[in-house]
Every structure is written in C-alpha cells, then in structure tokens.
C-alpha cells in the first residue's frame, strides 16, 4: 500500500549518543541568564492606573457627567446587559443573553446611591437630596438626570470647588452628583465600591474597575495606542516594551472592516480567532493542509545536514562497477 505524503518519513536513521540532562540544563541556563539580564536592565513595564480620585480631581465636569449617566441608565455599565444586568448596550450574541447575569450590577445603586448613603452619615445634607431623589418616580429621576447630563455636556464649568451649570429642572441631582464628585476626590470612593459587609477580604474589585469604564478609560488609553482600532491588544502601556504580541492574529482580525464596524465585533473576532486556532490544532487531520510543509520544503533546510550525510552515504554505496567500468 502506498504511503501518504502527509505520513511519509525516512526509516533508516541511526541513534547517536546524547547527554539529555546536559541539554536540559543548558536550555534552562540560557533562559535563566537571559531573563535575569533582561529583568535587571529593563525592569518591568508599569503604567500607574487611572484612579477615581485622579480622574475626579483632573476632570470634574467629565466625572460628574459620567456619574450622572449612572443615574439615568445611559452609563456604559448601567446599560451593559449580561453578565451584569438587563441592559442592552453591549449584548453581542444570543450566547451572552443565555449565559445570564453572573455578576449583578445596578449602576445607579451600586456606583452612586449606596456610596452616597455611606457619605451621608458624614454629611447629613446629602441625606435630604437622597430622600428627594428616591421618593420621586423613575420617570422624574430620569428627566432630572437627563437635564443635568445635557447641561454638563454643553455648559458645565468649574468654579472653585463646584461644577456650575445654568439653572434648570435638575431636582436633587446636582447635589447628589456634587457629593459623588467630592467622594471621588477624597479617595474614599474606591473603598465604597469594594465594600462587602459579609467578608473582610476585598478580592472582588469589579465595581471599582468598572466605575471608570467608558470615556475616562478611553481618553487615557488613546494616547498610549491601546484602543482596539489601534491594534491595542498587542501594545504595551509603556512604549518600547513588548506586550501580548502573541495575540497578533486576533488583533489583526479586529482591524478587518466588516469586523471593526460590526456591533458584535468581539464575538466575530474571537470566533474567527478560534477558527484559526482550530485550523492549527486540527492540521494533522486536514487533507491538503497537512501536506503544506512537504510542499514548502523548509524541512530541507532544517534537516540539511541529515540529508547531506545521507547523500554522501548513498554516494559511497553507489561506487559500483556500472559507474566505473573497468
């Protein structure tokens, strides 16, 4: 029976002595020296995080606007969808809906009102604003927050320690959001967001990390070329350092126009990336594709010495009367 090209190999080879332990110790030694030198010379790339306190201090109007969007449900997480809530803003697939709400977040409560209830014990003036807001209908709350968000976007400016907007129908929202901003500036917001009265450990910092999702993080990431359409996945936050360059193929897929412009960009890009991996993983079983190395012929370079020795050996065998009649 003929052997398939994708399974053909030489059989008449020899085994030669090998000190395998020395081989392993050599490779380990190479890696140890290499990483010690790289670590000593280049250290580790660390870009300080964007803190809530830092953002509140440097961008008061944007901070207030972001916080207001958590009250009217326009915020990135407020309207995200599974696994955080019933929102629709970031639902890319049926699978995402099906997977359900694993890590519930009510942005209005968890990001704004609960921290303010804690702050109200220190500043009772917050309590009256909270009571007014919470006793209003949902429609009214949204109207106040929408009006305030719009006013901040067009006319918000900082005067002293206050964000000023033209007079309008905002209800208690300015008082609540100003208090949120002050809480943010104080540095206490991170503690309020990670509070868990049931345990003393703080392993779940989800709300703290997600609080700045949206414009704050995007504006910080763009100059570092970390955005998705900047091939951000493979860029380090500290220029000049390597990052996850092994994600080059999925990052490239993200740049394809039909992927980049799709509302389900992540689902499509990762599915296609998984397809590429499957092609790689199943290479031995894919007819045609599993012969590519044979046709490419790179193996001739890799086994150049082996083939050379073999040819020499065959040449010696071929020294026969037919070649040298005599």
């Amino acid at each position, binding site marked *: 029976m003929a052997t398939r090209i994708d*399974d*053909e*190999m*030489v059989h008449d080879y020899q*085994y*030669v*002595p*090998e000190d*395998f332990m020395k081989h392993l110790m*050599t*490779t*380990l030694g*190479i*890696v140890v020296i*290499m*990483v010690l030198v*790289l*670590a*000593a010379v280049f*250290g*580790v*790339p660390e870009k300080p995080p964007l803190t809530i306190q830092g953002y509140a201090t440097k961008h008061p109007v944007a901070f207030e606007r972001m916080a207001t969007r958590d009250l009217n449900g326009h915020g990135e997480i407020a309207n995200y969808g*599974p*696994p955080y809530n019933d929102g629709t803003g*970031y639902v890319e697939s049926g*699978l*995402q809906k099906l*997977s359900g709400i694993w890590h519930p977040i009510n942005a209005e409560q968890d990001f704004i009102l609960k921290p303010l209830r804690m702050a109200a014990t220190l500043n009772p003036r917050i309590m009256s604003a909270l009571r007014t807001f919470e006793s209003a209908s949902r429609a009214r709350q949204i109207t106040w927050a929408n009006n305030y968000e719009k006013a901040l976007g067009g006319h918000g400016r900082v005067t002293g320690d206050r964000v000023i907007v033209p007079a309008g129908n905002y209800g208690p929202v300015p008082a609540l959001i100003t208090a949120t901003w002050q809480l943010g500036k104080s540095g206490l917001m991170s503690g309020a967001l990670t509070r868990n009265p049931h345990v003393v*450990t703080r*392993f*779940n*910092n*989800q709300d703290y*990390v*997600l609080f700045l999702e949206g414009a704050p*993080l995007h504006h*910080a*990431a763009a100059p570092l070329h970390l955005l998705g359409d900047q091939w951000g996945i493979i860029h*380090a*936050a500290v220029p000049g350092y390597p990052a*996850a360059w*092994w994600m080059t193929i999925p990052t490239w897929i993200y740049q394809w126009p039909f992927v980049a412009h799709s509302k389900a960009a*992540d689902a499509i890009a*990762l599915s296609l990336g998984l397809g590429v991996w499957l092609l*790689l*993983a*199943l290479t*031995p079983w894919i007819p045609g594709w*599993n012969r590519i*190395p*044979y046709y490419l012929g*790179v193996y*001739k370079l*890799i*086994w150049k*010495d*082996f083939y050379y*020795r*073999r040819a020499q050996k065959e040449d010696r065998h071929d020294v026969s009367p037919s*070649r040298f009649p005599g």
Partner: protein
Amino acid sequence: MANWTTAARNASATVLSVDTWLPETMPEYAQGFMYMLGSLTASSFVVLIVSGVILAANGPATWSYNAPMRFAAAVHFWAVQAFFFFMMMHLWRVFFTGAWRGGRRETWLLGAVALIIAIPTAFTGFLINGDFYTQWNAVQAKDGLNAMGLGWVNLPSAGQMFGMHVVVLPLTLSIVIFGHIYRVRRKGVVPPYPDRHTSAEKEDRHGNTHRR
C-alpha cells in the same frame, strides 16, 4: 475486568520510566538549535513557575512597594516573553517539519491545546498586576468573553483572576505540557520527510554520467 492496580502499575512503569524521561541516545536528525526550542520553551515555563511561586508567596501587589518583589515581577514578565517567543519558534519548527506524521497527531494536538491555554494563563497574570495595563485590559477584554457566553469569568475581579492565574490555568497548562512532552518522549521526534528530490536529482545526475 482487569486488575486496576496491575493496569496502574503497568502504566506507571512507562510514564515514570527513566528510559522515557532520560534518554541516552537521540536520532541523528534531531540535532542542533532547532531541537532546543521545545526545551527552551519548557525551561521558560520552569522559570515562570519558580518566579510565580515567589510572587504568590509574597502577595500579588508586593511588587508595588518592595524592590526585590519588583525584580521577581520583572523576571516573571521577561520569562513569559521568553516562553511565548520559544513556543512560537518551536511551533514554526514542528509545522515546517510536519511533526504530526507517524502517529504523532495527538502530540501536535496537545501542543496546540497548550498554546490556547497559555494565552489566558499569561493574560490573567497581566490582569492581577494592578497597573493601567491591567485596568484597561480587564475592562476591554471582558466584552469578548461576555460575547462568547463566558460571563462567569469576571476579568475585573482580581480575586477570580488571581485564582485563575495562580492555580486553575497553570495547573491545567502543566498537565497539558506534561502530556505533550510525555508523548514526544514516547513517540520520539518525527523523522525527516523522504529525500525524494535528492534521490531524483542523483538519478538524473547518474543518468547524465552514463550518457557521457
């Protein structure tokens, strides 16, 4: 039904054999730098485990205020770069040599599985570092996992990512790498393709010689 202990003894005799793990001979074609790439990858993994154990023993944020831990973090960072660099080089070598031939398909598959597990293993490490890269990637990458229906994996939760990075993923990766290397040792590295062109050229050369 066969005796389970006997079956386990027989399997262990092969899996734990010095003949499997410490060979004193190698095929003549498996020589040179190209055949160091797998070992260089495994060596990088050893450095990752050692530096990772040091980091885990001291706590994930100690690098931010402790100089020796910052150095350990730097070693861990460069070791992961070395790991992926050598793994990719190894991947090219095994691809170009058709390393799945001769009953080695499962070896290839285990290598590919190691690659796909290594990616989140490294990524979760970036996610517990705590700098801006952590913050940005936790927020960005969660959308992809959520879209794929993997919402239970909560990238912005440092606690879950710590468990994933320190236990779940490296343990899984270690088992897969063990299986991969075990199969490489049991089946041996793939022999070269038959040198047909060489033979054909030689025949042609000989033919010309005869015609002279």
